[in-house]
């Protein structure tokens, strides 16, 4: 049951984030929305790897190598989520930089002011 709850939370976060990103005209708010959504994604990711009643995939004294397979949770999603986090961070930084340039260009952060390119 636990993973479902985590997962649901993650999805809710995603939807909230997207809602923010799609409704707020202010570029910074949009970016914030996306970071929320990213967080949601990460939550979903880790929640998938979870196995009830198991422990972290570190084979120290707590988990003898022999019965690792039966004691630890799935390590792969954790590895993936790390990557996902870093990438999300990279993109966010990039978007912020862009936001800065856009602001410099027009002293406005309203996305609907940047529509010279269309049709």
């Amino acid at each position, binding site marked *: 049951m636990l993973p479902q709850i985590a997962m649901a939370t993650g999805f809710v976060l995603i939807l909230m984030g997207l809602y923010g*990103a*799609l409704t707020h005209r202010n570029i910074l708010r949009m970016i914030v929305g*996306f970071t929320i959504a990213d967080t949601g994604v990460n939550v*979903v990711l880790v929640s998938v790897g979870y196995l009830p009643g198991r422990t972290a995939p570190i084979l120290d004294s707590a988990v003898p190598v022999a019965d690792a397979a039966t004691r630890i949770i799935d390590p792969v999603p954790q590895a993936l989520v790390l990557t996902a986090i870093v990438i999300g961070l990279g993109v966010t930084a990039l978007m912020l930089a862009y936001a800065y*340039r*856009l602001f410099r260009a027009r002293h406005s952060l309203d996305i609907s002011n940047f529509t010279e390119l*269309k049709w």
Partner: protein
Amino acid sequence: MVSAIFIIAVGLGTAFLLGLVKSDQKGFAFTLTVAALAVMTWIAYDWTVALSRGTVEPATILTAGTQPPFAINLHIGLAEAWLLTVINATGLLAAFYMRAALCRLGKGAMSVLLVMVMALSGLVLTRDVFNLFVFFELIVIATGGLVLLSEDARAVAAGFKYLVVSQIVSILLLIGIIFTYHANGSLNIDDIAAVPFGLQGASLAMFLVLMALVLELKPFPANGWALDIYESAHPGFSAIFSAASGTAALFAADKLVAAAGPAWLPLMTVIGLFTFLGSNVLALKQDNDRRLLGYSSVAQIGLVFAIVGQRDILGEGYLFVAGGVLITHAVAKAGLYWISGLVPGRGLADWAILRANPVLVFAFASFVAMLVGLPPFPGFYAKWDLMHALAGSGRFWIMALILAGALVEAGYMFRFFGYAIKRETQERFPGFAVDKVAVVVAALAAGWALGFVWGGISLNPNLLTLVPVLFALLFIVLEPLPAWVKNIIAIVGLVGWFWFRMGNYDPLQMIFAAVMLVGGAVILIASFYEHGRRIGFYVPTMLMYAGLALLIEAQTSFDFFAAWEVLTIGSYFLILRGRMGEPHALSYILFSLGGAFLILAGFALASTGVQPFELKSGLSAIAEASVPAAPWVFALLAVGFMTKTASIGLHIWLPGAHAEAETDVSPMVSGILLKAGLYGLFLLVMTMGRQKIGSIDLTEVLVWIGAISALLGGVMAIFQEDAKRLLAYSSISQLGYAVFGLALMNHVGWLLALMFVINHYIYKSMLFLAVGGVYKRTGTKLMYKMGGLITLMPFTFVSVLIGIIAMSGVPPLSGFGGRWLFYNAIMASDLRLPMVLIFISGPIGFLYLFRLIHTIFFGQLKDEHRKLKEAPVWLVIPQMMFVLALLAFAVLPGMALQKVDAYIGTFFGDQPLVWSGRAITSTYGYWSPVAVMVVIGVIFVAVLLLLMSMGLNAQKVKQFNIVFSAERPFKPQTTHFAWNFFAPYRKAVGFLVMPLVTTFWGAVTDTLHSTADFTRRLYTGNGQTYAVQVLVFVVAVYLIVLGGAQ
């Protein structure tokens, strides 16, 4: 072999290394970048060669020394190798091209470029779905960086929109990936493939993954962001974005689609086709060159994606087809973007500046041809195989949609090209940067090389090894020579080829070959009047003739179609040369391509996908087996051919095209080109005979079409003021006769058609040359501005006189033979009503012909023409040759017709005509040409002597010395009755010439354009709206899939 992972290692390593370079050593940094890219390209190319030669096996590259799926692994096979080459080569050339911009932004930009190319390569290589995601994000970020290379301030906004969308994409992708992983415990694509997903159950995960990848392919209409980037980014980068990114993303999608299993293919097909059609239609309204190219890119990727959806039927041909389209598009689009970087203005007409450099024009033409899928480029072979596969498995809708989309694309691409050739540009010529031109030329060379390679791979003959084509291309090299030298070479080539092949022709081919090749040579004599080098004339001309030569000898359906396309291309460029030729050339190419597509569909249908398809035996086989498809094949092919014979309804391109063409081009495109269509129809009726759809006999439909063309063509000719247009319309009428005779499906009818082939060639060429000569002297084509030229241009007058007597069918000249055969033919047929139309159109010939000769040569000479000289001698010589030919043919029709008469007899097993000595006897009547000639001659001379015997003292009087309502006129203008010559006739039957057909086609195009203009407002330019559209797209497709699943 160097492991392919070095492409990644080198790219990345150099990117990091650049950090150590001092930021002021930009030259060094740039050299480093280029060197790295060169190495990467070389590795990829090396693999491509080795794999195609089969000297190495496809390789799987392990990482971490662990077997997949437990560690990420890469794979390089033939497809990967090809794409890697394309991607890295594009990157390399783009680096050269963007040198200035890169150096301006410094080493940072260069490392971004390197990472971009590296990531694209990784995307192609990796077999791990999460790794795929990582490379995707790298590409996204790198794109975000490279967009900044542009001087265009709007690029920043475009980049941001792109980032917004890619955020959504990555969210979908990640969720999809993780659930896919959960579903089958592996991230390895091959593992996923091992457990194919149905549309149910865990499919939702796979759906999200696929949708993410699809969104990267810029599906219509969720692709506004991409278009904005295309429009605003640095052209050098747009090339990468279109050629490399598009290609890599498509391959990634392909990998996943393959893994997802066949159940998903239909969905992909729909999305692909929707994108292909949608973007092409929207492109119609674009006036910004880069955005136009962007739309075209999106469309092309869509097309390839639709092909991906066909992988189940393409079998091992899959790579050949998909790769052919994909790679051609990559090269062409990169080339076009690079050209657009050379053009200062952003309007389509600004490309006219390219005329300053013939090489660039040639490049532009080649790239357009590549995109439209014309020979000899890979797209052509791919299109051919694809259509056959589709027809083979009965996917006719897909065929139809793909061809329709291709036609639209051809529409705007050729319109674009027409602008470049014809429009005036306001831009001041900047002088082209040599290095950038060099990059374009490199792409050009690559394109042709690919054409050669693909031709070699295809199971059909390689067009670039055919002698006629090579001969035509030879003239590219010869361009620097003066025109007369090239002309001699051309003439020798034509006659020589005819001489060389003569042995293999059957009588029918003989007639057509004589008319097309030898006839072409005769017309070329007229070309000697042109001085200078006449750049860009001989290549298309000889291409057209090459096409004709190949057409006559075509054995398989492929040979025929290829030849057809070649001659279409050649004639298009030829017509485009005409002074006001632009719109007419466009409508010509559109009708021709439309026709060609129908022919392609027809052949594909006929062969049911089996290649090679023996033309004659194959068609007759399906006719005898009376397979249900047979009549449709007939219909498709017939309509296709009739676009060339300009039968009514498909005729609107002809008048302008023929009238605006150059003096020596008009006879080529009228006297010769139209015959290609007739040849096709001949083959068709010979092999397939009468086909019925329901109870309608298609040949009878042809009879009607022929008759109507003959009538309306004539009526329209009557009301022309422009001499060349008059002749053009009369061509429609004449070809109508030929089609009519052919469709009568009896011996004499076919003979009639052949008679028209010969006659129409001779007198129409003659008349066009004559009128052309007059045009050269008077500087106008409007007949009412001429008059009284008989004494000034006697030779021209003679040829026109002979021409119109022959054409009107008055004895004793050869036209009468046609009429005589006509009566015998209709007697043998059991049709009645269509004949009525022909009876009406017969005498109408007199009207326009008399008008032609009267208003030009008789009546009042204008003051400004009093000093005119006879037409240039080079124009007169061929005319005189034609006069002799006409007389000879009039006296001895047997020369040309007797053999072919016997040949036709073998089809009908009858021999209605008896050639006894000089006389011809038919079932119904008889005709002795010599006797007719002699009798008339004798009587004429006798009467003449009689008149002379009554005194030779005829006194020459002055021009205005006429009895004119009791006063003496003094102004030619008021005395020359010429304008609206047949006013009473217009009053009586003017309703026949209402431009219904033109209106119809006009309406079609207008509808398309307004649709485009309305739909494209979808792209509001607001990044948020784009994001919404993306989500709408995903959700919509999701719902559709759900609907499909239940």
